[in-house]
């Protein structure tokens, strides 16, 4: 059976006033069905750009994206439409990722309406079921996004992403804007939903500690490239790449008896990203 997602030698760059920014430089990886792959890297290393390339929101320079054995890169908007249902996204900023003028029920129903799933009554019912499933009270369905907290908004975003029953959800830093306790709630929710909905996650984050217990595999991204892929936990015990080691050392351990580490200044190399062309 073919992998669920196969990205081969993906390149993407931007023309800016300061020259060409090569944001994704030859990324290749595969994801199996039902798997959670964490993509970890510092800000500006190209995680979001990679996600946008896979979702077809960003023109790629070269390389292929295959979803479920079919090539989805280089397709026109119209050609891509039938594949949309299989691949959804949860965004980082819970405050800008929901249209402030739409009610929760509309936000969750929109994907169903667009793809003509079921009758109107069935869609209504699906929306309420989804709300219940992600931990929102169904009687909140007529409310607007601004009436919810950050964590609740992310639940709305998750319900919207799940509505079309996708095979893959790309989560772009879905908990970075949330408090630790709410972070845990959202990660646990995603974990539970994975079993019920048989969905795979490409989970993008800058926090390596977060994915240890959640992801099956971890890919470390640095300056537009994936420098290391390994089993979660394995990466911690035995980091291979110099950057991974720097990253792990920099993470403050929640134990006052462990002395402070993180002396290296590996990341200063990032300053050159804009300059190189």
């Amino acid at each position, binding site marked *: 059976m073919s992998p669920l997602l196969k990205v081969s030698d993906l390149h993407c760059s931007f023309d800016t006033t300061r020259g060409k920014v090569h944001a994704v430089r030859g990324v290749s990886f595969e994801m199996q069905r039902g798997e959670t792959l964490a993509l970890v890297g510092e800000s500006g290393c190209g995680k979001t750009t990679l996600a*946008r390339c896979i979702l077809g*929101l960003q023109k790629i320079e070269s390389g292929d994206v295959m979803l479920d054995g079919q090539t989805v890169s280089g397709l026109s908007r119209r050609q891509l439409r039938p594949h949309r249902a299989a691949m959804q*996204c949860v965004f980082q900023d819970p405050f*800008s990722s*929901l249209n402030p*003028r739409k009610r929760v029920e509309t936000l969750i129903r929109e994907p169903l309406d667009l*793809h003509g799933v079921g009758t109107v009554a069935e869609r209504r019912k699906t929306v309420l079921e989804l709300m219940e499933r992600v931990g929102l009270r169904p009687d909140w369905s007529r409310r*607007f996004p601004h009436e919810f907290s950050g964590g609740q908004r992310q639940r709305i975003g998750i319900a919207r992403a799940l509505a079309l029953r996708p095979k893959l959800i790309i989560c772009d830093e879905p908990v970075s804007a949330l408090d630790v306790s709410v972070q845990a709630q959202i990660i646990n929710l995603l974990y539970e939903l994975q079993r019920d909905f048989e969905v795979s996650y490409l989970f993008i984050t800058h926090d390596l500690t977060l994915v240890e217990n959640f992801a099956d595999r971890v890919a470390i991204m640095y300056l537009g490239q994936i420098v290391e892929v390994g089993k979660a936990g394995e990466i911690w015990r035995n980091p291979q790449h110099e950057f991974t080691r720097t990253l792990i050392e920099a993470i403050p351990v929640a134990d006052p008896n462990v002395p402070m580490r993180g002396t290296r200044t590996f990341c200063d190399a990032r300053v050159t990203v804009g300059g190189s062309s």
Partner: protein
Amino acid sequence: MPRLVAISRTIFSNWTLALGVLLLLAIILMALSAPYVFPGDPYDMVAPALTWPGTMPEVPLGTDSLGRDIAAGIFHGARVSLMVGFIAVCFALVIGILVGSLAGYYGGWVDDVLMRVTELFQTIPQFMLAIVIIAVLGTSIEAVVMSLGIVSWPTVARLVRSEFLILRERAFVHSCLVIGMSDLRIIFTQILPNALSSITVMSSVLMATAILMESALSFLGFGDPNVITWGTMIGMGRGQIRDAWYIIAIPGAALLITALALNLVGEGLNDALNPRLRKREV
């Protein structure tokens, strides 16, 4: 009905808006009742010329140098002013929103072309442009509306474009792309509603400007000679400014109040339409 209650509550919790709406309603009422209150032609002579306001009960606001009833002129003039302003703004909104949203959403060469055209219209002073258009089309009320619409749309286009430039980068637009929504649907059902509050605010100010500009055109004699407007009245009272200044002052005040009302509405809407501000009141 509960919606109506909610709307009126928003209006009256905000005194700027309340005052603006009340004034505007009064002016609209004047305009609507003009044919019933003053059934005759406002250009007819009804009383001795230059009757001062308050001296003859039949003509409470007095008469001008030809004995025409000023009150009748004010009422009928309100009809023209409001209608001209309203239609001109609608015209400007249709063109401005189309141009601005396409330019802002697509960017790139679409934006370049559309904005070049917009700038072309903006480099010519508005009033001059309006006079030129009327000169070409002839002095009819339709020409006045047309010219005011044409000079107003670039302002709308620029505002809409700048709103779209910001809004199209918001993650909710990406989220709509991801579920497969078409561009036109995103523009009109997702982004435009978010830009609507600033467009509404701007429209009321634009309408005030259009009404003032219409008066100025009429004052200079570029208006339709067959309909009476506040501007025409001011223009015709010019000669008596020393001995019968009320002939100018009364329509002048009517203009001022209308412009003020529209600006108050604009300002009030600015506060009321912002969903975040509204939430804080609760």
